[in-house]
């Protein structure tokens, strides 16, 4: 099985007529994702490769029963696009946009509390349930259907880990990029809960990084509620304090949010913490055979 997205997921692409939106729509369709609609205000009535374009998400939902959204909208308007998707009743919203102002996300997160919508991202490569559905910009072919769940704050580092797994013949149930920003939608804790409940996920790999306390919160949650084995890598052991390491959220502020603290918290919660990013694939093998 998988979490959040599968072969029945019906996707609307917000910003489908832009360069990025159009390119990745084609990539998603090629992978087998059911892209049923696109939205670009003012371009309703057009179609992209036979996919109908609407002026609003609610129109798209009404006409195509879309239940998930992929957002390829510039940063200034992306917060708005998330709100529109939630208001239209979309249940899984994947926001790929990088560079949304933090205070816009404060408002978005508050609005989402009153809805059933689940937000993935922003600033994420997206989510993929291998062989079933890909909503995002990751290269589909490196993945393989299987039983490992992956939760990550990073893009290419996730590809690295997925590649290590696939080359060992170990497949993935669902891989979720939660995003590199300070304020994001679903976090480690939320996704650990989904994977714990998913009967086809045997183990979870967490890829964290410096900044914030999401990994520490995950450690507390794992200790109490997660029975499946969890393996973690935390990037940024060598990152200097006070500097933003590429991702808006990757910063050690006031001495807090170091990789060392996160690794210690996770180790104490019984998580297998891997220090060498090249060995994640290798280290998952004994965990799987032990079960």
């Amino acid at each position, binding site marked *: 099985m998988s979490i959040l997205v599968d072969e029945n997921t019906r996707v609307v692409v917000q910003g489908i007529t832009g360069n990025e939106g159009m390119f990745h729509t084609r990539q998603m369709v090629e992978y087998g994702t059911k892209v049923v609609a696109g939205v670009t205000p003012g371009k309703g009535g057009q179609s992209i490769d036979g996919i109908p374009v609407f002026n609003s998400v609610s129109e798209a939902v009404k006409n195509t029963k879309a239940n998930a959204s992929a957002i390829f909208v510039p940063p200034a308007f992306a917060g708005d696009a998330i709100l529109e998707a939630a208001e239209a009743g979309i249940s899984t919203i994947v926001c790929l946009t990088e560079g949304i102002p933090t205070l816009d996300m404060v408002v978005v997160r508050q609005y989402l509390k009153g809805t059933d919508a689940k937000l993935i991202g922003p600033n994420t490569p997206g989510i993929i349930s291998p062989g079933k559905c890909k909503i995002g910009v990751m*290269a589909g072919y490196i993945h393989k259907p299987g039983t490992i769940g992956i939760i990550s704050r990073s893009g290419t580092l996730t590809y*690295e880990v997925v590649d290590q797994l696939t080359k060992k013949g170990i497949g993935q149930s669902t891989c979720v990029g939660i995003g590199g920003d300070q*304020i994001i939608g679903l976090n480690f804790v939320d996704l650990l809960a989904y994977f714990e409940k998913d009967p086809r996920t045997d183990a979870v790999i967490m890829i964290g990084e410096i900044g914030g306390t999401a990994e520490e*919160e995950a450690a507390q949650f794992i200790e109490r509620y997660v029975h499946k084995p969890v393996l973690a*890598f935390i*990037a940024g052991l*060598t990152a200097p304090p006070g500097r933003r*390491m*590429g991702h808006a*959220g990757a910063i050690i502020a006031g001495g807090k949010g170091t990789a060392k603290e996160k690794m210690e918290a996770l180790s104490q919660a019984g998580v297998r913490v891997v220090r060498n990013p090249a060995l994640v694939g290798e280290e998952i093998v004994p965990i799987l055979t032990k079960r």
Partner: protein
Amino acid sequence: MKIHEYQAKEILKSYGVPVPKGGVAETPEEALKIAEGIGEKRIVVKAQIHAGGRGKGGGVKIVNHPKDAEKVTKEIIGMTLVTHQTGPSGRLVRKVLIEEGMEIQEELYLGVVIDRSKACPVIMASREGGVEIEKVAAESPEKIIKEWVEPSAGLRAFHANKIGYGLGLEPAQVGKMRNVIFGLYKAFCEKDCLLAEINPLVLTQGGEFMALDAKMNLDDNGLFRHKEIAALRDLNEEAPLEVEASKYNLNYIKLDGNVGCMVNGAGLAMATMDIIKVAGAEPANFLDVGGGATVEMVKNGFKILMSDPGVKVVFINIFGGILRCDTLAKGVTEAVREVKVNIPIVVRLEGTNVEEGRRILNESGLNFTVAIGMKDGAEKVVEALRRQ
């Protein structure tokens, strides 16, 4: 983005937060003029750099006459100020803030930051002002009052009252404190800050609150809607190579090691630094050419990392997804041909069209060491260092 104390104070003043009388000077003559406007009383001269700990480093002087303000300005401007935040090389002082000295009754702390877990701004206040708030938080967290502000209702009088009375202030002081809290919070929101801090917020002998020092960190993602804030960026405060990198939308951070790294994606770039360390060497930099790097970005990134004289070996670690490895290999070979390189370059390519990418590298006639996998790459880097 960071701004100077004098810039933060100008912003806060426009939001009704009381700040000491004064102004910024780039020459002793300007300093004298501002000091004369303050008069023959206590005058403070403060070096303006983007780092804390200026007082201990000798960048803050107190004088009693405008003429003396001119004299100490002559000493401070042009000095290289070393504080615990500047690193051993220090920072050249180009500007000073000339301010009226205050008769201080008490030093407090007031700040607003984003609480990432709760996804909203949090106001923090303490009577333990003038020291780093992280230190107070670690040693006596009960001395910090926190109020979270839900964005739709916004900041309300009750928040300010809870803070004021929570700090044990007199009713008359709570009213004045409320104005400072509202001004600071409004500035935080309207300017898209990630941090806005008054430390210390002083209570003067006259019973007034005054922002004696101020710090603001702006959200880079919000700058597009604040042209006036973007204009406050001081390139002198940033490392020259980092400024150069930012022109090409590259994320480059200089470190102290000797292995130059070029990676696509921030997480993989950090992991690459980490694996270099695990293998027994030290990274010279963080360089993220972007998850979807182009040939042009790879070229520019390579030139920037090669400008660091400390680099003895280069490690290029690329995971091509949508972006194809052959495209990247072309970028790397072009860059190496343009920049004359006489140090070893270890390249690890993985992902789409990897075979073609490796073939381009091998047939380029250039001296690349092609690595298979990250671990192999890091080990080859250490080996190359040893041979030197």
